[in-house]
Each structure stands twice: as C-alpha cells, then as structure tokens.
C-alpha cells in the first residue's frame, strides 16, 4: 500500500506520537487549565492556532532564518501568534479568558510548540509542516479534552457545565484541585503503558507464530 506522506504526518500526532501521552511535552498548560472541559477546549483552540500559524510561517521562511539565531526567531514568531490569540480570546470570550488568566501568554513557553518548530517545521516544506502541526495540535486538544472531562466529571459531577448526576452525587473535590491533575495524568499514562505492553506482547506472539509456521 502506498502511503500518503501528508496524511501520515497528520495522523501520527493524534495517536502514535501523541505529544502529551507519548512524548510528555507541553505539560504545564496541560495540567493547569484542565479543571473543566470548557477551559480545556479554549486552551486547546488557542494552542492549535498558535502551533499551526507558527509552523506555517517558520516553514515558509526556513531558508531565510539564519541557523545561529533560529531559536530566537521561532520564539518571536510564536510570541506574535500568542499575542493575537490572547487579544482574540479577550474580545470573544472574556469569561473564559479571565479564568485561563496568565496561562494564555504562557503558551509561548510551551515546549511542544518550540519543539515542533525545531524538529519539523524548520526542515520540511510548508505543506508537510502544516499537516504535522495540525496533527500534533489535534493530539494536544484531544489530550486536554480527555483530561478536562475526566476531572470535571469526577470533581464536579458535570461536563461542559451540565450536571450529569442527580442531587446525591458527592463531588470528588480533589480532582479539580491541583493534585487531581497530577493523579489523573499519571493514571492515563499508566493506561497508555499498559496498552503499549499489550500491543508489544501481541506483536511478539504474531512473530512467534510466523516463525513456527515457516
């Protein structure tokens, strides 16, 4: 089967190389804003915009940026997009902006974004770079959303602010407090490890079966 390179780049970020669960990048915003699903979505959208925008610019100008000062150039490009995202969110959804607070400007220091520029966008043509950015950003949004939903359901008994359980639900408050973020992500990573080890076992079995056949 012939593989479509841009589709490959798009898909790898969502599952196989998921930036949060597999590469463990961009943890700070990941844990800080996922105390409710709506915050997680707003943060995810802002990061998506910044990542795709800066990947596009960096990849377009990759031959013009001198090697020695590339990191500074990337950071300035990223900071510009973050400023745009910051002011856009402030104008569109002031409530969410207030709740996210300082964490929107902090997208600049998200190592996932700088990492993608350095590892991918500065080396590949624009089309592939944008595809890679969309994939990685979707993976990030997915991770934010899953963590945010788990924490909101357990800690508040609600999802996107809609109560899921009846009056008798006793909220598990620790989940929306800081320790809950660490614990939830720890358990999710544990699940990923388990999944990977199962997969490795399965692949080994298949290989063994093939060996015995031949």
């Amino acid at each position, binding site marked *: 089967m012939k593989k479509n390179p841009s589709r490959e780049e798009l898909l790898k970020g969502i599952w196989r190389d998921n930036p949060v669960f597999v590469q463990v990048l961009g943890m700070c915003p990941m844990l800080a804003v996922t105390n409710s699903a709506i915050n997680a979505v707003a943060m995810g959208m802002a990061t998506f915009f910044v990542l795709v925008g800066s990947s596009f610019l960096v990849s377009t100008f990759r031959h013009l940026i001198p090697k020695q000062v590339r990191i500074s150039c990337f950071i300035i490009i990223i900071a510009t997009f973050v400023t745009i995202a910051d002011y856009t969110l402030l104008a569109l959804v002031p409530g969410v902006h207030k709740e996210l607070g300082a964490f929107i400007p902090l997208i600049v*220091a998200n190592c996932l974004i700088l990492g993608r520029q350095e590892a991918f966008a500065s080396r590949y043509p624009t089309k592939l770079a944008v595809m890679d950015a969309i994939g990685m950003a979707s993976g990030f949004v997915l991770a934010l959303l899953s963590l945010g939903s788990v924490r909101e359901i357990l800690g508040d008994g609600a999802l996107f602010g809609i109560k899921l359980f009846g009056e008798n639900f006793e909220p598990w408050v620790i989940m929306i407090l800081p*320790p809950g973020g660490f614990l939830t992500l720890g358990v999710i990573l544990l699940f990923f490890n388990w999944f990977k080890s199962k997969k490795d076992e399965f692949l080994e079995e298949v290989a063994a079966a093939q060996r015995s056949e031949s």
Partner: protein
Amino acid sequence: MDNFLWIFVSALLVNNFVLTYFLGLCPFLGVSNSLETSARLGLATTFVMLVTAVCAWLLNTYILVHAPYLRLICFIVVIASTVQFIEMLIKKLSPALFRAMGIFLPLITTNCAILGLAIFATNRGYGFWQGIVYALGAGIGFTLALVLLAGLREESELSDVPKLIKGTAMNLIIAGILSMAFMGFAGLFSTT
C-alpha cells in the same frame, strides 16, 4: 514588612509554582533524577528569576506603559538574553560550574516558571522590592519541589515497583501526593 513576608511565604509554600500552578513541569519531571543536579538547576533558576523580576519591573515601568501589547514579546526576549548572558558569565568566571550545569542552563529559557513569574508579578502590580521578594520565594519554592521529588525518586529507584508504572506515570503520581501535602499549607496565613 508583613506584606513582604506574606508574599515570600505565599510564593514559597502556599502557591508553590510547581505544585499548585503547574509551572516549570518540564525540568521538574525531566531533571529530577538526582539530588545534586536538581539543587544546582534550582539555584540557577532562582538567579534567573531574580534578574527577570528586575528586568520585568524596569520594562513595565518605563517602556511597556506605552505599548502593552508588546509585553509578551519583550519579556521572552529579555529572558532569552538574560539566560544567554548568564551562560557567558558563568563560562568566563567558573568553567567548572559551567561544565557541571551543561545543557540545563540554556534550557531555562523555555522554563515557563520564569515567564510565569514575570506575568504574575505584572498582573498583581508588584513594585520593585515586592517583585524581588516574590522572585526569591518562587525560586526557592521551585528548588524545594525539585529537590523533594528528586529525593523521592532516588529512593524509589531502589524499591521494587511494577514495571508498568515505572517512569513518568509514577513521577506524576508522586508529584500528586506531594501537591496534596502542599495543600496543607493553604491555611497557614489568613488572607484577611
């Protein structure tokens, strides 16, 4: 004086940067495998924080009042150049220390705790001395969290844990428990 003490203890324990604001998690999870390196990195970060607090105050007072939308770009450029400058300074003054710090020194640039410090101090409208006390508290708090996790990790290396949970998953759960312990400090001061 009371005010300064409150800012210091708040940044150090009650609102510890790593364990309650989730800032600077990358070095927190990445570097905390030995006590010595984490203490060194903590000290270097504290120093960068102090310099950043001074620079942020200068920028805010004299330049950014005219162009607030340039704040983020200015801060990040200042932090990047401070780190670069400190790197050169240490290399010149003490090559041994420079070699010991290795890659961690340039990586301080992407530590969100530093940028977070500058932004929080601006948002709260801290003055010059308040900013310095805040940076000191935050830096020592960062070092404290780093050293605590490093100590726990060194212990857990020797114990028999299931293979599945080894690595980041276990570190996160340890950090969660540490964070719970730090929540106990919340009642230390009454805010009224």
